[in-house]
Protein backbone atom coordinates (compact mmCIF):
# COMPACT_ATOMS: atom_id res chain seq x y z
CA UNK A 1 0.00 0.00 0.00
CA UNK A 2 1.21 3.46 -0.80
CA UNK A 3 2.83 5.20 2.14
CA UNK A 4 0.91 8.29 1.07
CA UNK A 5 -2.22 6.69 2.43
CA UNK A 6 -0.78 6.67 5.94
CA UNK A 7 -2.12 10.12 6.89
CA UNK A 8 -5.57 9.02 5.79
CA UNK A 9 -5.38 5.87 7.90
CA UNK A 10 -4.29 7.79 10.98
CA UNK A 11 -7.04 10.32 10.35
CA UNK A 12 -9.70 7.65 10.13
CA UNK A 13 -8.55 6.14 13.41
CA UNK A 14 -8.60 9.55 15.05
CA UNK A 15 -12.08 10.33 13.78
CA UNK A 16 -13.29 6.97 15.02
CA UNK A 17 -11.99 7.83 18.46
CA UNK A 18 -13.59 11.27 18.39
CA UNK A 19 -16.90 9.88 17.23
CA UNK A 20 -16.90 7.41 20.08
CA UNK A 21 -15.82 10.19 22.40
CA UNK A 22 -19.02 12.08 21.64
CA UNK A 23 -20.93 9.49 23.62
CA UNK A 24 -18.70 9.77 26.67
CA UNK A 25 -18.94 12.28 29.46
CA UNK A 26 -15.52 13.81 30.05
CA UNK A 27 -16.64 15.30 33.37
CA UNK A 28 -17.69 12.04 35.03
CA UNK A 29 -15.00 10.73 37.36
CA UNK A 30 -15.38 7.00 38.05
CA UNK A 31 -14.54 5.93 41.57
CA UNK A 32 -11.32 4.06 42.28
CA UNK A 33 -12.94 2.70 45.45
CA UNK A 34 -15.06 0.07 43.73
CA UNK A 35 -14.31 -3.33 45.25
CA UNK A 36 -12.23 -1.66 47.92
CA UNK A 37 -13.10 -1.40 51.59
CA UNK A 38 -15.46 1.45 52.43
CA UNK A 39 -13.42 4.24 54.04
CA UNK A 40 -13.76 4.41 57.78
CA UNK A 41 -15.67 7.24 59.36
CA UNK A 42 -17.18 7.92 62.74
CA UNK A 43 -19.58 10.83 62.62
CA UNK A 44 -22.29 12.39 64.75
CA UNK A 45 -25.85 11.66 63.80
CA UNK A 46 -27.94 14.56 62.62
CA UNK A 47 -30.92 13.78 64.79
CA UNK A 48 -28.95 12.96 67.95
CA UNK A 49 -25.50 14.59 67.75
CA UNK A 50 -24.37 12.87 70.95
CA UNK A 51 -24.50 9.52 69.18
CA UNK A 52 -22.03 8.42 66.53
CA UNK A 53 -22.25 6.12 63.54
CA UNK A 54 -19.20 4.48 62.04
CA UNK A 55 -18.56 2.32 59.00
CA UNK A 56 -17.70 -0.56 61.32
CA UNK A 57 -21.23 -0.45 62.72
CA UNK A 58 -22.60 -1.23 59.26
CA UNK A 59 -20.44 -4.30 58.69
CA UNK A 60 -22.43 -7.44 58.02
CA UNK A 61 -25.27 -5.77 56.16
CA UNK A 62 -25.78 -4.40 52.69
CA UNK A 63 -26.34 -0.67 52.87
CA UNK A 64 -26.58 2.49 50.82
CA UNK A 65 -24.86 5.79 51.56
CA UNK A 66 -26.48 8.82 49.97
CA UNK A 67 -24.52 12.07 49.97
CA UNK A 68 -26.88 15.05 50.23
CA UNK A 69 -27.14 18.66 51.38
CA UNK A 70 -29.90 21.19 51.95
CA UNK A 71 -28.22 23.60 49.50
CA UNK A 72 -28.16 21.00 46.75
CA UNK A 73 -30.89 21.52 44.16
CA UNK A 74 -30.57 18.12 42.48
CA UNK A 75 -30.97 16.41 45.86
CA UNK A 76 -34.53 17.67 45.92
CA UNK A 77 -35.03 16.10 42.51
CA UNK A 78 -33.77 12.68 43.59
CA UNK A 79 -35.45 12.81 46.98
CA UNK A 80 -38.53 10.94 45.79
CA UNK A 81 -36.37 8.17 44.38
CA UNK A 82 -34.34 7.81 47.57
CA UNK A 83 -37.57 7.70 49.50
CA UNK A 84 -38.84 4.98 47.17
CA UNK A 85 -35.66 3.01 47.76
CA UNK A 86 -35.96 3.36 51.51
CA UNK A 87 -39.62 2.31 51.41
CA UNK A 88 -38.69 -0.98 49.78
CA UNK A 89 -37.21 -1.92 53.15
CA UNK A 90 -34.55 -3.88 51.37
CA UNK A 91 -31.47 -2.15 52.71
CA UNK A 92 -30.55 0.54 55.21
CA UNK A 93 -30.20 3.96 53.63
CA UNK A 94 -27.79 6.23 55.45
CA UNK A 95 -27.49 9.90 54.57
CA UNK A 96 -24.19 11.75 54.57
CA UNK A 97 -25.03 15.37 55.15
CA UNK A 98 -22.18 17.03 53.29
CA UNK A 99 -20.81 20.51 54.02
CA UNK A 100 -24.07 21.69 55.44
CA UNK A 101 -25.44 23.46 58.51
CA UNK A 102 -27.14 20.90 60.81
CA UNK A 103 -30.00 23.36 61.38
CA UNK A 104 -30.61 23.76 57.63
CA UNK A 105 -30.29 20.01 57.12
CA UNK A 106 -32.85 19.18 59.83
CA UNK A 107 -35.29 21.73 58.45
CA UNK A 108 -34.84 20.31 54.93
CA UNK A 109 -35.69 16.81 56.15
CA UNK A 110 -38.72 18.12 58.02
CA UNK A 111 -39.90 19.92 54.90
CA UNK A 112 -39.34 17.20 52.34
CA UNK A 113 -39.43 14.04 54.43
CA UNK A 114 -36.69 11.88 55.91
CA UNK A 115 -36.01 8.63 54.00
CA UNK A 116 -32.81 7.89 55.87
CA UNK A 117 -32.42 5.41 58.71
CA UNK A 118 -30.09 8.09 59.96
CA UNK A 119 -28.01 10.94 58.58
CA UNK A 120 -24.51 11.71 59.71
CA UNK A 121 -22.91 15.12 59.69
CA UNK A 122 -19.82 15.75 57.56
CA UNK A 123 -19.63 19.47 57.97
CA UNK A 124 -16.09 20.10 56.76
CA UNK A 125 -16.30 17.56 53.97
CA UNK A 126 -13.37 15.54 55.28
CA UNK A 127 -15.22 12.24 55.10
CA UNK A 128 -16.46 13.18 51.67
CA UNK A 129 -12.88 13.47 50.50
CA UNK A 130 -12.10 10.00 51.86
CA UNK A 131 -15.03 8.60 49.88
CA UNK A 132 -13.95 10.46 46.75
CA UNK A 133 -17.01 12.68 46.77
CA UNK A 134 -16.66 15.53 44.31
CA UNK A 135 -20.25 16.57 43.80
CA UNK A 136 -23.64 16.31 45.40
CA UNK A 137 -25.64 14.10 45.23
CA UNK A 138 -23.72 10.86 45.05
CA UNK A 139 -24.83 7.41 46.14
CA UNK A 140 -22.78 4.40 47.22
CA UNK A 141 -23.77 0.76 47.55
CA UNK A 142 -21.76 -1.13 50.16
CA UNK A 143 -21.80 -4.88 50.52
CA UNK A 144 -22.06 -6.91 53.71
CA UNK A 145 -18.34 -7.47 53.55
CA UNK A 146 -17.78 -3.73 53.88
CA UNK A 147 -16.61 -3.27 50.29
CA UNK A 148 -17.97 -0.55 48.05
CA UNK A 149 -19.75 -2.23 45.18
CA UNK A 150 -21.16 0.65 43.18
CA UNK A 151 -21.10 4.43 43.02
CA UNK A 152 -23.77 6.49 41.36
CA UNK A 153 -22.74 9.98 40.32
CA UNK A 154 -25.43 12.62 40.24
CA UNK A 155 -29.10 12.32 41.16
CA UNK A 156 -30.57 8.81 41.16
CA UNK A 157 -33.47 8.54 38.75
CA UNK A 158 -36.27 6.01 38.90
CA UNK A 159 -34.75 4.41 35.85
CA UNK A 160 -31.29 4.02 37.30
CA UNK A 161 -32.83 2.80 40.56
CA UNK A 162 -34.78 0.02 38.90
CA UNK A 163 -32.32 -0.87 36.19
CA UNK A 164 -28.99 -0.59 37.93
CA UNK A 165 -29.17 -0.21 41.69
CA UNK A 166 -31.94 -2.69 42.53
CA UNK A 167 -30.29 -5.57 40.64
CA UNK A 168 -27.03 -4.88 42.46
CA UNK A 169 -28.79 -4.80 45.82
CA UNK A 170 -30.70 -7.97 45.12
CA UNK A 171 -27.54 -9.76 44.08
CA UNK A 172 -25.67 -8.64 47.16
CA UNK A 173 -28.44 -9.75 49.44
CA UNK A 174 -28.70 -13.21 47.96
Amino acid at each position, binding site marked *: MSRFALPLVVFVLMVGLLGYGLRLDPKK*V*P*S*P*LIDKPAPEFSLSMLATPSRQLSTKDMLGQVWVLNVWASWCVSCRAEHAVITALANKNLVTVVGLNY*KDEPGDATRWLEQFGNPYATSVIDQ*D*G*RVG*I*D*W*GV*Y*GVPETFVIGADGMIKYKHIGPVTHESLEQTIMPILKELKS
Partner: protein
Amino acid sequence: MKRLLLLFVFSLWVAPMQAAIEAYQFDSPEMEADYNQLIDELRCLVCQNQNLSGSDADLARDLRRETYQMLQQGKSQQEVVDFMVARYGDFVLYRPQFQSNTYLLWLGPFLLLVLVLYLVVRWLRAADKPVEVDAAAMAEAKQLLEDNESHK
Protein backbone atom coordinates in the same frame (compact mmCIF):
# COMPACT_ATOMS: atom_id res chain seq x y z
CA MET B 1 14.95 16.13 43.60
CA LYS B 2 11.44 17.52 43.45
CA ARG B 3 12.81 21.02 43.43
CA LEU B 4 15.09 20.20 40.55
CA LEU B 5 12.10 18.81 38.76
CA LEU B 6 10.18 21.97 39.48
CA LEU B 7 12.99 24.06 38.15
CA PHE B 8 13.64 21.87 35.18
CA VAL B 9 10.08 21.68 33.99
CA PHE B 10 8.84 25.11 33.13
CA SER B 11 5.81 25.56 35.29
CA LEU B 12 3.74 27.40 32.79
CA TRP B 13 0.13 27.53 33.69
CA VAL B 14 -2.97 29.61 33.46
CA ALA B 15 -5.98 29.12 35.61
CA PRO B 16 -8.89 29.74 33.31
CA MET B 17 -11.00 31.00 36.13
CA GLN B 18 -10.36 33.45 38.86
CA ALA B 19 -7.75 32.35 41.35
CA ALA B 20 -8.41 31.78 45.00
CA ILE B 21 -5.79 33.03 47.37
CA GLU B 22 -5.10 31.65 50.83
CA ALA B 23 -2.44 32.97 53.13
CA TYR B 24 -0.99 29.69 54.40
CA GLN B 25 2.11 29.84 56.56
CA PHE B 26 4.82 27.29 55.85
CA ASP B 27 7.58 25.91 58.03
CA SER B 28 10.12 26.23 55.25
CA PRO B 29 10.49 27.58 51.71
CA GLU B 30 10.95 23.99 50.50
CA MET B 31 7.57 23.03 51.92
CA GLU B 32 6.03 26.08 50.33
CA ALA B 33 7.55 25.14 46.99
CA ASP B 34 6.31 21.56 47.40
CA TYR B 35 2.83 22.86 48.19
CA ASN B 36 2.82 25.16 45.19
CA GLN B 37 3.92 22.40 42.88
CA LEU B 38 1.31 20.01 44.23
CA ILE B 39 -1.58 22.39 43.87
CA ASP B 40 -0.41 23.18 40.36
CA GLU B 41 -0.40 19.55 39.36
CA LEU B 42 -3.57 18.39 41.09
CA ARG B 43 -6.81 18.79 39.22
CA CYS B 44 -9.94 20.46 40.50
CA LEU B 45 -12.58 17.80 39.89
CA VAL B 46 -15.58 20.06 39.76
CA CYS B 47 -14.05 22.61 37.43
CA GLN B 48 -13.77 22.86 33.69
CA ASN B 49 -10.11 21.97 33.50
CA GLN B 50 -8.34 23.87 36.24
CA ASN B 51 -5.74 22.97 38.77
CA LEU B 52 -6.27 23.31 42.50
CA SER B 53 -4.28 26.52 42.67
CA GLY B 54 -6.41 28.29 40.10
CA SER B 55 -9.84 27.33 41.30
CA ASP B 56 -12.07 28.99 43.86
CA ALA B 57 -14.42 26.02 44.07
CA ASP B 58 -15.23 24.66 47.51
CA LEU B 59 -13.80 21.24 46.80
CA ALA B 60 -10.59 22.83 45.54
CA ARG B 61 -10.33 24.80 48.74
CA ASP B 62 -10.85 21.61 50.75
CA LEU B 63 -8.24 19.69 48.79
CA ARG B 64 -5.74 22.52 49.10
CA ARG B 65 -6.32 22.45 52.84
CA GLU B 66 -5.76 18.68 52.84
CA THR B 67 -2.54 19.12 50.89
CA TYR B 68 -1.32 21.82 53.25
CA GLN B 69 -2.13 19.79 56.33
CA MET B 70 -0.48 16.66 54.99
CA LEU B 71 2.71 18.54 54.17
CA GLN B 72 2.70 20.13 57.61
CA GLN B 73 2.43 16.61 59.06
CA GLY B 74 5.63 15.77 57.28
CA LYS B 75 4.22 13.76 54.42
CA SER B 76 6.10 13.74 51.15
CA GLN B 77 4.79 14.94 47.81
CA GLN B 78 4.38 11.37 46.63
CA GLU B 79 2.31 10.53 49.70
CA VAL B 80 -0.02 13.42 48.96
CA VAL B 81 -0.31 12.25 45.36
CA ASP B 82 -1.05 8.68 46.46
CA PHE B 83 -3.69 9.98 48.87
CA MET B 84 -5.47 11.88 46.11
CA VAL B 85 -5.23 9.07 43.57
CA ALA B 86 -6.57 6.53 46.07
CA ARG B 87 -9.71 8.63 46.42
CA TYR B 88 -10.21 10.18 43.04
CA GLY B 89 -8.27 8.06 40.63
CA ASP B 90 -5.68 9.03 38.04
CA PHE B 91 -7.98 11.78 36.83
CA VAL B 92 -6.88 14.04 39.65
CA LEU B 93 -3.28 14.18 38.38
CA TYR B 94 -2.27 16.52 35.63
CA ARG B 95 1.02 14.69 35.37
CA PRO B 96 -0.01 11.20 34.20
CA GLN B 97 1.83 8.52 36.13
CA PHE B 98 4.10 6.29 34.13
CA GLN B 99 2.11 3.07 34.04
CA SER B 100 0.96 0.53 31.49
CA ASN B 101 -1.82 2.64 30.09
CA THR B 102 0.41 5.67 29.61
CA TYR B 103 3.48 4.11 28.04
CA LEU B 104 2.27 5.19 24.63
CA LEU B 105 1.63 8.70 25.88
CA TRP B 106 5.05 9.24 27.38
CA LEU B 107 7.15 7.27 24.93
CA GLY B 108 5.18 7.60 21.71
CA PRO B 109 6.42 10.99 20.52
CA PHE B 110 10.08 10.11 21.16
CA LEU B 111 9.72 6.80 19.39
CA LEU B 112 8.08 8.57 16.49
CA LEU B 113 10.88 11.13 16.35
CA VAL B 114 13.57 8.47 16.38
CA LEU B 115 11.80 6.43 13.74
CA VAL B 116 11.23 9.37 11.41
CA LEU B 117 14.76 10.71 11.82
CA TYR B 118 16.17 7.26 11.15
CA LEU B 119 14.11 6.83 7.98
CA VAL B 120 14.92 10.29 6.72
CA VAL B 121 18.64 10.06 7.39
CA ARG B 122 18.70 6.70 5.64
CA TRP B 123 16.88 8.18 2.65
CA LEU B 124 19.24 11.17 2.53
CA ARG B 125 22.33 8.98 2.80
CA ALA B 126 21.08 6.90 -0.10
CA ALA B 127 20.81 10.05 -2.16
CA ASP B 128 24.37 10.93 -1.24
CA LYS B 129 25.82 7.63 -2.44
CA PRO B 130 27.12 7.69 -6.01
CA VAL B 131 25.19 5.49 -8.40
CA GLU B 132 26.88 2.12 -8.97
CA VAL B 133 27.68 1.58 -12.60
CA ASP B 134 27.27 -1.87 -14.00
CA ALA B 135 30.39 -2.31 -16.17
CA ALA B 136 28.86 -4.90 -18.44
CA ALA B 137 25.73 -2.88 -19.09
CA MET B 138 27.91 0.14 -19.72
CA ALA B 139 29.95 -1.71 -22.29
CA GLU B 140 26.82 -2.98 -23.98
CA ALA B 141 25.37 0.51 -24.11
CA LYS B 142 28.59 1.82 -25.57
CA GLN B 143 28.48 -0.91 -28.22
CA LEU B 144 24.93 -0.07 -29.15
CA LEU B 145 25.79 3.58 -29.53
CA GLU B 146 28.75 2.77 -31.78
CA ASP B 147 26.59 0.50 -33.89
CA ASN B 148 24.05 3.27 -34.20
CA GLU B 149 26.72 5.68 -35.30
CA SER B 150 28.13 3.37 -37.94
CA HIS B 151 24.69 2.77 -39.37
CA LYS B 152 24.06 6.42 -40.04
